[in-house]
């Protein structure tokens, strides 16, 4: 929970949930587990606002509550973690992935669930069907059953999961809080063990739901809408047999998918398209058999790979073997050989691939910031571990003065560390070896913190730019609204032109450049998030295995 992480989480909460939630969330992040009264006292906000904020945070999974540390009688404590809030940066990527895998329906389902946090299946299906119907042509509407089948597909491939029932939740009784399918919830609330969604066997079971119909299209007349909306909450209380079963997006599954994609694209860049297809086949075959924290996939025999290759790739058997040998010999070590039976048993080394990808990221960062010769020194130190000053100059083939300069720059940026090896017990400087070295894991952590700081700076700059031009933006919005209403009521082109001329040319220029800046800052955030994902996966993978 570094300073930069907390700052970034605060900005993300402010953009998506408002400033009040930002205040409460930041306080919880800094102070750890707190109970309600402490939060109220320390933030100085009124009771109702704090309650609302906590409801919103719990609903979106950012905050978990458990009964207090002093025993079952003490007040409930709320705990927030940075990781969940930082996922907000990755939401566009999740939605885009759902679109590529499951089409527009899948995309809208994931978007709705990300916006609302937890939802029941029936309400999700209805909302998505309505949204799809609105975008369709007149007279056509979306069947609920189509949306339900897309939902079930998402659950089968584990992209969606049920929310775990929370122990210690208020309500009628604790037994009715859980859906009836689940096994009995633990009687005493578990203080230390936080139940993950996966610890319940039914977390991927689609409930039997009675829901049939089509999406409703909203009328364009305002009065009809108001009346309909006024009656809607009263009519829509029909239950569909899945009350109390809430679904959430399974981020870990998306992360596995991203990791696989990163490995496949790295292979495609380094070798060629066919090798990447082979690796993709291997990963697809071991999707269900590999656990999320596995070091490498289960061994697959060359025969199996040959049979499962997509039919569009007609490569002969010996050529497949050659490709596999090439992959095994590659220094990036994506694929390893685990035995000789079945024509050769091959595994995909997941952790090692991630480590190599992280290493490539570090090298590219050094190259872009300090130049290619510094990058050469950095790569040299990564490979050779510990080198003296003189050896660095010799191996890197760089003149001594410049090598010294570059080394000191890298040292001052903390990318390179100095290791002392004494010859005598007193660390006399003339009798000590000074070796330069690079430690990959701490350097990756430092770069990850830099990435968080970068995104926080980007967001702040974007907010600043928007605030500066607030007046201009409001004016342009009003003019657009006027134009739209004029066009809807059928005005002459002269009137439209008159309204358009209300924005002067320099103002238009200013608006255009503002839009360009904001788009740049936003897409920069998306791109930095890709680096964050890679470094985070490497760090969690290595930290858990060592």
């Amino acid at each position: 929970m570094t300073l930069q992480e907390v700052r970034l989480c605060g900005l993300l909460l402010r953009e998506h949930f408002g400033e009040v939630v930002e205040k409460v969330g930041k306080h919880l992040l800094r102070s750890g587990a707190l109970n309600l009264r402490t939060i109220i006292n320390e933030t100085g906000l009124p009771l109702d606002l704090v309650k609302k904020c906590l409801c919103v945070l719990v609903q979106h999974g950012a905050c978990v509550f458990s009964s207090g540390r002093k025993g079952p009688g003490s007040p409930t404590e709320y705990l927030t973690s940075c990781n969940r809030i930082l996922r907000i940066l990755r939401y566009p990527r999740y939605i885009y992935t759902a679109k590529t895998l499951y089409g527009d329906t899948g995309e809208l389902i994931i978007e709705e669930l990300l916006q609302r946090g937890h939802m029941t299946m029936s309400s999700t299906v209805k909302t998505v069907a309505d949204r799809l119907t609105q975008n369709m042509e007149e007279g056509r509407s979306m069947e609920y059953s189509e949306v339900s089948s897309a939902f079930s597909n998402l659950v089968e491939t584990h992209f969606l999961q049920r929310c775990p029932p929370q122990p210690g939740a208020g309500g009628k009784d604790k037994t009715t809080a859980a859906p009836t399918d689940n096994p009995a919830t633990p009687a005493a609330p578990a203080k230390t063990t936080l139940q993950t969604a996966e610890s319940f066997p039914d977390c991927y079971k689609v409930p039997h739901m009675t829901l049939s119909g089509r999406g409703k299209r909203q009328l364009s007349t305002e009065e009809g809408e108001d009346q309909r909306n006024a009656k809607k909450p009263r009519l829509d209380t029909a239950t569909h047999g899945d009350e109390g079963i809430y679904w959430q997006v399974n981020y870990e599954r998306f992360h596995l998918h991203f990791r696989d994609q990163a490995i496949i694209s790295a292979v495609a860049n380094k070798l060629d398209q066919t090798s990447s297809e082979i690796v993709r086949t291997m990963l697809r075959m071991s999707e269900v058999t590999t656990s999320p924290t596995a070091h490498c996939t289960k061994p697959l025999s060359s025969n199996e790979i040959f049979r499962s290759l997509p039919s569009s790739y007609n490569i002969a058997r010996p050529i497949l073997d050659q490709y596999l040998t090439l992959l095994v010999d590659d220094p990036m070590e994506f694929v390893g050989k685990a035995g000789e039976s079945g024509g050769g048993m091959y595994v995909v080394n997941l952790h090692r691939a991630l480590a190599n990808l992280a290493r490539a990221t570090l090298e590219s960062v050094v190259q872009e910031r300090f130049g290619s010769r510094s990058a050469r020194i950095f790569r040299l130190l990564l490979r050779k571990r510990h080198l003296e000053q003189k050896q660095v100059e010799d191996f890197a083939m760089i003149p001594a003065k410049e090598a010294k300069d570059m080394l000191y720059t890298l040292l001052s940026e903390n990318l390179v560390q100095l290791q002392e090896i004494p010859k005598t017990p007193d660390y006399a400087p003339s009798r000590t070896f000074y070796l330069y070295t690079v430690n990959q894991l701490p350097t990756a952590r430092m770069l990850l913190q830099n990435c968080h700081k970068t995104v926080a700076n980007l967001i702040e700059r974007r907010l600043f730019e928007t605030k500066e031009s607030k007046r201009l933006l409001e004016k342009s919005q009003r003019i657009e609204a006027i134009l739209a209403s004029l066009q809807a009521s059928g005005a002459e082109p002269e009137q439209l032109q008159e309204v358009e001329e209300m924005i002067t040319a320099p103002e238009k220029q200013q608006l255009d450049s503002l839009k360009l800046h904001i788009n740049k800052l936003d897409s920069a955030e998306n791109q930095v998030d890709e680096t964050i994902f890679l470094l985070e996966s490497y760090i969690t993978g290595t930290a858990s295995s060592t």
Partner: protein
Amino acid sequence: MAGRGRGRRMMSFSVDAVGINRGDTLPPTIQQPTPAYPAMENKPLPLAAGEEAEYMLALKQEFRGAMRSLPCFIQPAAPHRDVERYSDKYHSSEPTDSLITWTPDWRSLPRELRVARLPRRDGVSVSRSVPSGQIRQVKEKEEILLKLESLEQKEQQGSSEEEEGEEKKKQEEEEAEGEEEYDEEEFGEETDYIMSYFDNGEEFGGDSDENMDEAVY
């Protein structure tokens, strides 16, 4: 420490191991903090362009916009200005939709977070689950007023029925007000004594202000 040779100029680490040779100029010492925006020698690479990047950008901006209109977006109540401004009636207020009122499933939240009716956008709330002493006091006062009014009505019905309804109401209102003040005085300070009977002596000497001819010493 290791570097303090007698009068000789020695540095704290060995010269040749780290690579500084004799006679080499050391870089100039820095005497102020490094500039906040130093000039970059290596410019960064351009952003990734392409259909995917643009689509994700659009998704991101739409998501942000959609979140602002959801009930999860909590804004505190706007602070009351001292004077009503002319522009107040032109500030756009978002239409209140049925989407705005949002009740979470209380079974999945701890009991203490329960609010009787979760309010809409602004923080103005009407929560009845907060048992504060003030509500109890108000209820007590209301009950007392009702009892006194009913007693009065019985008295008046018994005595004269010639009074018109309006006068009765006026009287009742006045009496109610008088009783309210009465009650506040009596119950406000939680004593057994009726405060209006007690004379603190503040009015003493107040009459002398009417004749300003004589000087006041």
